[in-house]
């Protein structure tokens, strides 16, 4: 075998199985869903072609727009909360700035190991009107009808959920960063210390530049994960009260599986993909800038 064909065969063997399985499972459902988004269909008879009508309906529905606003909040918390915090935590543990880093690492990651439904049940036991926090506040304020009013505010009902999302997923970014920090050769850092670099300089000049790539990667996860977020919010509030904590994925689920509007539901999932792509494109432009900055 020639070098060239050997390379080609190796490539096929390496990437082929993943591509085949993935294509086999994904392609039919995606095409199905995409074509349904231009129709009206309840699962019976043949779908009725309606063009872009479903998309117009979505974009003019105030419930969808509030869901969009909420999901952008989740994206913001992920990008400006989880990623920096996750990085800081990873850095603290990686540089051994504290004692017991391994213990804390385990603790911070632990929420991810619990399924979202269980997390929702646990937190509801704390913040719901029947929960421990409410009970405590009722005692302190001597007001037996006290409830956490924030859940009944259209503007702020998302705040407790955002807080839980921050707590739950920061550990995931931390672990990814730790794995990538391990890759930086310790000798480079030692050399910097010998040169008299401060902790800040080590971070800014040695570590951050080599992490730009992975930070971009995690930003993509954050966007795609946020736009799809369903389990936790659905189990906690179901999008209520009165759609205050509605997010797009719940909107899609309810319309598809409760009201059997397959065309409409499919259109919503297409909107999710388009939104994600848009946001990821935006992030990519920003990161290109950073890369150039470090290259310069």
């Amino acid at each position, binding site marked *: 075998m020639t070098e060239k064909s*050997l*390379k080609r065969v*190796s*490539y096929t063997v*390496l*990437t082929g*199985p*993943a*591509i085949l*399985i*993935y294509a*086999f*499972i*994904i392609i039919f*459902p*995606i095409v*199905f869903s995409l074509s349904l988004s231009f129709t009206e269909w309840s699962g019976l008879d043949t779908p009725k072609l309606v063009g872009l009508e479903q998309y117009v309906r979505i974009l003019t529905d105030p419930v969808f727009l509030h869901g969009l606003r909420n999901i952008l909040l989740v994206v913001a918390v992920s990008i400006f909360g989880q990623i920096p915090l996750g990085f800081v*935590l990873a850095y*603290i543990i990686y540089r*051994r*700035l*504290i004692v017991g880093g391994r213990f*804390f*690492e385990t*603790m*911070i*990651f*632990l929420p*991810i*190991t619990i*399924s*979202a*439904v269980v997390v929702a*049940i*646990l937190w509801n*036991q*704390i913040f719901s009107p029947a929960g421990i926090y409410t*009970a405590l506040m009722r005692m302190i304020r001597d007001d037996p009808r006290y409830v956490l009013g924030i859940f009944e505010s259209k503007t702020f009902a998302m705040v407790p959920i955002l807080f839980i999302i921050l*707590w739950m997923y*920061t550990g*995931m970014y931390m*672990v*990814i960063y*730790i*794995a*990538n920090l391990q*890759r930086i050769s310790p000798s480079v850092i030692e050399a910097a210390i010998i040169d008299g670099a*401060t*902790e800040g300089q080590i971070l800014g000049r040695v570590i951050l530049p080599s992490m730009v*790539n992975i930070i971009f990667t995690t930003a*993509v*996860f954050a966007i795609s994960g946020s736009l799809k977020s*369903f389990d936790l919010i659905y189990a906690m509030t179901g999008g209520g009260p009165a759609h205050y904590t509605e997010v797009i*994925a719940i909107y*899609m689920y309810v319309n*598809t*599986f409760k009201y059997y509007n*397959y065309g409409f539901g499919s259109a919503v999932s297409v909107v*999710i993909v388009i939104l994600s*792509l848009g946001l990821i494109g935006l992030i990519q432009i920003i990161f290109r800038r950073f890369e150039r900055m470090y290259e310069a």
Partner: protein
Amino acid sequence: MSSEIRQKNVGWNLAAYIIMIIFTVLTVGPLVWLLYSSVKPHFDIIRNVFGLPKTFYVQNYVQAWNLAHLGILMLNSIFYSTVATAITTLLALAAGYGFAKFKYKISGFFYFFFIMGLLITVHSVLVPLFVMETRLRIDDTRLGVILPYVAFGLPFSIYLATSYIRGIPDSLEAAAVIDGASYLRIFKDIIIPICTPVVATMLIFSFLANWNELIFVLTLTSKATLRSLPVGVLAFAGGKTRNYGLQFAVLVIATLPMIMFYVFSHNQLARGFAAGALKE
């Protein structure tokens, strides 16, 4: 590290400890509550949600285990998680190597194709996937569960693997190619060992996702003998009937193995981290 640098960082350290401790308390608190509540009978839970158990009511566990046939569900969970995780991780590493180091143009297309998978909501493919599996007669089989697990696990793992392998200096494998080592040998002997830290991450995430997955296994299988633990959890949550004692017991049964898996594998893999770092 010199003690001088340590002293400069006292403020840093304090802040670090505070964040770490807040996280720990938030995580451990609810879990401890869950653990002791799971040994209280339903009658006691509804009368005093936060009280410590008066007796050690193991009956919750016995009853939950038998009612929901948790034994078979547990075995299935282990089977699905292990097999799907192994396949996903191996395939993702191989594909990641291909995409990152073989400078073929088509890689860009395939890579994009996988990344798009990150954006797809599970619910939007549920019905077409069920239709497809029934036509192919792989619905209600273990294969019918594992294939979607692998397919939906691949985008995340491929992304991790590819971006990690891209960061490996070309010089390392170029040397091996000159030595005449085949690509597959480079994959096995050079890429995989260097990738140990990211493999650890991939294994953990993949395993967790598969362990907690509910909606596929519920829709794509019918036989009780093919289902997994989250189905058991679901059986006790919500509905018109209720028994918090049983519900909490089953939550512990579903959650504890994962926490133990993580704590255990984490320590194991930490040694891998160190090894991986040394090799470079």
